């Protein structure tokens, strides 16, 4: 089995090479099938690994593909770490990735750049696999940069629209800021431990660092790595790129900006959990960032009117939830939420894509409504995902959110309250969107109304598969209070990958039931409120800003964070650039350059009269020159 491991990333890479090198010779209709076929191959191999991992037969293994860097005492190999954690992520990436490839075949079929689109998608999957499979930080970093590049390419896929290009650049630059932190963290690890291999780093860390006292170096390393995670996983203060990233095609938003790439930060921290557990300070910091991101993004989500923007803020908020879990020390709860989120958020995005497809490109939920009857499959799958994200049992979201909330309650009831508050906000904006889109009367143009249709099978099958997964994936981590045997299967599974089992909870069963019940009742209450607001009363979000209340305006304008960044960072830098360009460049550098040019011109103009055309003059110069040289030779 292990001999074929290198094929997992190699197949998507091959697909990328074929599609990009023979772009012109491949029929447009075939490119999607080539890309999907490659991914299916990887998925089957991964599935094999997953089954042996689930059976408990997968020993953590390092597969070396080739020696990569040998400089001084730095020996790096391109090698893959295969254990329960990486195989789990690989399954999500290739599985959800394959479904989204399939969906894209139909969604993108009439786009002129479809071959380019699929080549980028394959490159993305390759990079993402590299990220999770690498057995040292350098391979992870390579994948980390690769996914950033693909994200940039795909956000700016329709590059003729300048706004989309700007969104792509914003994503890239925000990610660069985070990547710098990651790089510095990596260098610090190397400086401290003289190696970058996971297993060696963790061994050394356990040996060198005394767990009982705070170690500054560990805090620095973990904080720097977390800055990388902030960029990639869109946390405060680097989250503003993700909502803008919705400029890309909808399947891209589903795959990259919801299901896989943005969870890279969680994977990185879960992978380095040994280091993070030694730095409780960092964990507290992660908790604060995660919680504030979850709440802030949810508050912004409340008033957005673009269907994809709502989902984008929901993604940011859910990522905040995952970091909340990690900040509380619940690595397995974080990864569990990654898993369920990957399914229901991909489903939501693909559902939104199906809606946008039917509406002929319209994304404003104020102009939708009543789509329930026209798009039955999309509606049913969408409502499953919405219920899941709201945390209605027995759907996946209930279990993963409950695991995080239970952790929070153990830390303190206030933390639990904050978590529930974020969850309620999530429920509100998700149901607001659901009602506005699928219930009530159709509010679009008559032309759109005639055009409404359910998406083809190639698009609805992924929806159905994801809906199925959304329903069942929660059962991998049933809390202890429900069953006696076989509870918390997923935590035990991850324990095989060096992620410590969470301590047995000391909350009594009755308290836990009460917590679940309270959260559930509140969620249902919020659902009813939104129903009354948006279905019974048919409230519509204000069509212009002037009609909004102050708070609405604040949320609708994303708390003016973009404007704040513009004023604090962008403007000063632009000012400095202007100064450099107008004063330093034009007044100093340009003048020096011009001066040298002009002096050459002047001397040429003056000295050229020596060339008189008179042969005798030349001859005299020559003779005088020779005499002078001879004279100098004789005398000196």
């Amino acid at each position, binding site marked *: 089995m292990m001999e074929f491991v290198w094929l997992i990333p190699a197949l998507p890479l091959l697909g990328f090479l074929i599609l990009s090198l023979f772009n012109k010779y491949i029929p447009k209709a075939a490119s999607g099938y080539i890309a999907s076929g490659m991914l299916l191959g990887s998925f089957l191999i991964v599935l094999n690994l997953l089954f042996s991992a689930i059976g408990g037969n997968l020993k953590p293994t390092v597969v070396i593909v080739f020696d990569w860097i040998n400089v001084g005492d730095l020996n790096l190999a391109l090698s893959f770490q295969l254990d329960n954690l990486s195989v789990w992520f690989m399954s999500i990436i290739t599985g959800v990735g394959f479904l989204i490839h399939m969906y894209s075949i139909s969604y993108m079929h009439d786009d002129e750049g479809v071959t380019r689109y699929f080549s980028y998608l394959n490159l993305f999957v390759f990079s993402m696999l590299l990220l999770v499979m690498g057995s040292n930080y350098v391979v992870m970093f390579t994948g980390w940069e690769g996914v950033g590049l693909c994200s940039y390419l795909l956000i700016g896929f329709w590059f003729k629209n300048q706004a989309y290009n700007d969104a792509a650049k914003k994503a890239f630059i925000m990610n660069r800021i985070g990547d710098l932190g990651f790089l510095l963290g990596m260098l610090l690890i190397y400086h401290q431990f003289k190696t970058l291999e996971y297993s060696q780093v963790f061994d050394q860390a356990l040996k060198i660092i005394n767990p009982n006292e705070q170690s500054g170096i560990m805090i620095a390393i973990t904080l720097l790595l977390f800055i990388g995670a902030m960029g990639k996983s869109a946390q405060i203060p680097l989250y503003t790129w993700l909502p803008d990233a919705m400029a890309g095609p909808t399947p891209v938003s589903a795959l990259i900006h919801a299901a896989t790439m943005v969870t890279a930060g969680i994977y990185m921290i879960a992978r380095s959990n040994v280091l993070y557990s030694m730095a409780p300070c960092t964990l507290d910091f992660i908790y604060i960032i995660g919680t504030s991101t979850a709440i802030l993004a949810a508050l912004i989500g409340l008033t957005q009117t673009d269907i994809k923007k709502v989902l984008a803020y929901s993604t940011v908020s859910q990522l905040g939830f995952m970091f909340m879990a990690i900040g509380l020390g619940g690595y397995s709860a974080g990864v569990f939420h990654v898993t369920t989120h990957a399914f229901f958020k991909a489903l939501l995005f693909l559902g939104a894509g199906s809606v946008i497809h039917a509406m002929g490109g319209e994304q404003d939920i104020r102009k939708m409504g009543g789509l329930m009857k026209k798009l039955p499959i999309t509606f049913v799958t969408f409502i499953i995902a919405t219920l899941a994200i709201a945390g209605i049992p027995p759907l996946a979201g209930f279990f993963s959110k409950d695991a995080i909330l239970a952790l929070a309650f153990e830390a303190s009831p206030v933390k639990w309250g904050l978590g529930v508050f974020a969850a309620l906000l999530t429920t509100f904006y998700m149901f607001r969107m659901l009602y506005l889109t699928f219930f009530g009367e159709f509010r679009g143009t008559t032309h759109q109304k005639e055009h409404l249709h359910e998406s083809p099978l190639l698009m609805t099958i992924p929806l159905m598969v994801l809906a199925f997964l959304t329903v069942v994936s929660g059962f991998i981590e049933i809390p202890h209070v429900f069953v006696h045997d076989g509870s918390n299967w997923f935590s035990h599974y991850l324990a095989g990958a060096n992620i410590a089992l969470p301590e047995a909870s000391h909350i009594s069963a009755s308290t836990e039931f009460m917590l679940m019940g309270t959260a559930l009742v509140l969620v249902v209450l919020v659902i009813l409120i939104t129903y009354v607001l948006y279905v019974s009363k048919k409230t519509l979000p204000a069509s212009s800003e002037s009609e909004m209340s102050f708070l609405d305006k604040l949320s609708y304008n994303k708390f003016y964070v973009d404007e704040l960044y513009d004023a604090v960072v962008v403007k000063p830098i632009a000012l400095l650039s202007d100064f450099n360009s107008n004063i330093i460049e034009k007044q100093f550098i340009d003048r020096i350059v011009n001066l040298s040019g002009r002096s050459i011109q002047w001397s040429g103009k003056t000295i050229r009269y020596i060339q008189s*055309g008179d042969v005798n003059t030349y001859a005299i110069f020559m003779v005088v020159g020779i005499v002078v040289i001879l004279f100098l030779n004789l005398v000196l």
Partner: protein
Amino acid sequence: MSEYLVLCSILFSLGAFGVLYRRNILVMFMSIELMLNSVNLLMVYFSALHNDQSGQVFVFFIMAVAAAEITIGLAILVMIFRHLGSINIDSLKKLKW
């Protein structure tokens, strides 16, 4: 024996002055020939001084090549005369700034 050196220097300088002062291209050619042959003479002198025959043989070669060379020069001179109707060097001043 240094009188040979003095003679050659005088001949060479005469040639050089001829080139510098004369305006007639034909005379300038002749002056150049004088410079060349002063050097040839010097070569013969040194060959005798060092008891080495090759220097004298070399001079014959130089004379043969110089004859061929001057033929080309004269051909050009004829063309200049046909073109400009004069062999004064001052009429050739077009190639300047």
